[in-house]
């Protein structure tokens, strides 16, 4: 279990994920050696699951981002598994979430432009299995996107 010092480190790290280790140690009030040890342990125990590079898809020419929401036909017992397996095969899918609520599943999908989106939608999205209802939210702008937690 992470203790108060671990939480202090994580709070600072989530607030500023690009922070260097020396600065992080100072802000969290620990020595660099202790920081190293604690980060190592948190990665080993899975408190920190991963440190990933964030890719800006727009910079790679993907201008369109769509949030697709699905309701599945639950009379089919394998609906979730089959749907997720099929969604994983679509390279333009960047996120898959499952929910308890009026929506069962959500996909984040990126496309180069509207023409590419139309092709993707017709060939890869409409063909996903066991869908009883779906709707799309087209991203206009991201106003806030932070990772911080009030630890």
């Amino acid at each position, binding site marked *: *279990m*992470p203790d108060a010092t671990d*939480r202090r480190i*994580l709070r600072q*790290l*989530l607030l500023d*994920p*690009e922070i260097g280790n020396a600065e992080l140690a100072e802000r969290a009030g620990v020595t660099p050696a202790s920081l190293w040890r604690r980060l190592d342990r948190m990665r080993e125990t*899975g*408190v*920190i*699951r*991963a*440190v*990933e*590079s*964030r*890719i*800006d*898809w*727009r*910079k*790679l*020419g*993907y201008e369109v981002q769509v*949030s697709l929401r699905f309701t599945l036909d639950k009379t089919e017992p394998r609906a979730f598994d089959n749907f*997720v397996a099929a969604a*994983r095969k679509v*390279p*333009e*899918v*960047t*996120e*898959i*979430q*499952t*929910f*308890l*609520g*009026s*929506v069962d599943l*959500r996909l984040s999908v*990126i496309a180069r432009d509207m023409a590419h989106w139309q092709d993707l939608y017709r060939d890869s999205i409409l063909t996903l299995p066991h869908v009883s209802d779906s*709707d*799309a*939210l*087209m*991203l*206009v*702008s*991201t*106003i*806030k*996107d*932070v*990772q*911080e*937690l*009030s*630890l």
Partner: protein
Amino acid sequence: MSDAAFSPDATDLAILRLLAEDATRSAAEVGRALGMTQPATWRRIKRLTEAGVIAGRRIVVDEAALGFGVTVFLGIRLAAKGRASLEDFERAVTAIPEVQTVQHVLGQFDYRLRVRARDIADFERILRRRIMTLPGIGQVEANVMLSEERRPGPL
């Protein structure tokens, strides 16, 4: 910096794939995996970073182990009558610490939010005291997240 799309070659994509998985990999490690020298790999990573393709880091934590067991996605439609300005709504919603993501969208909703709470009771408090009191708020739809998977994308 220009906003023009960066045209990555196969090597750039391979580097992105490795770093998207683990950003702490050194240029030497990435180079070894791809049969490249450390300096050549380092130059490519630098170029991808300077072009803004590598936009930063995401720390993926076990939120449940840290006492944040509940993530809720909200769809928000602003009220049509007496419509408050988008700026007022956006200013107020971004100030809520539990709201991690705010996106302006087109479709059935005007905004989508990602909210992090300790438990369902905590979420109810956030919903009632913070969300339902936002200027211009209309219809709200909440879906509690059960699982999440991030995919590498078209790399």
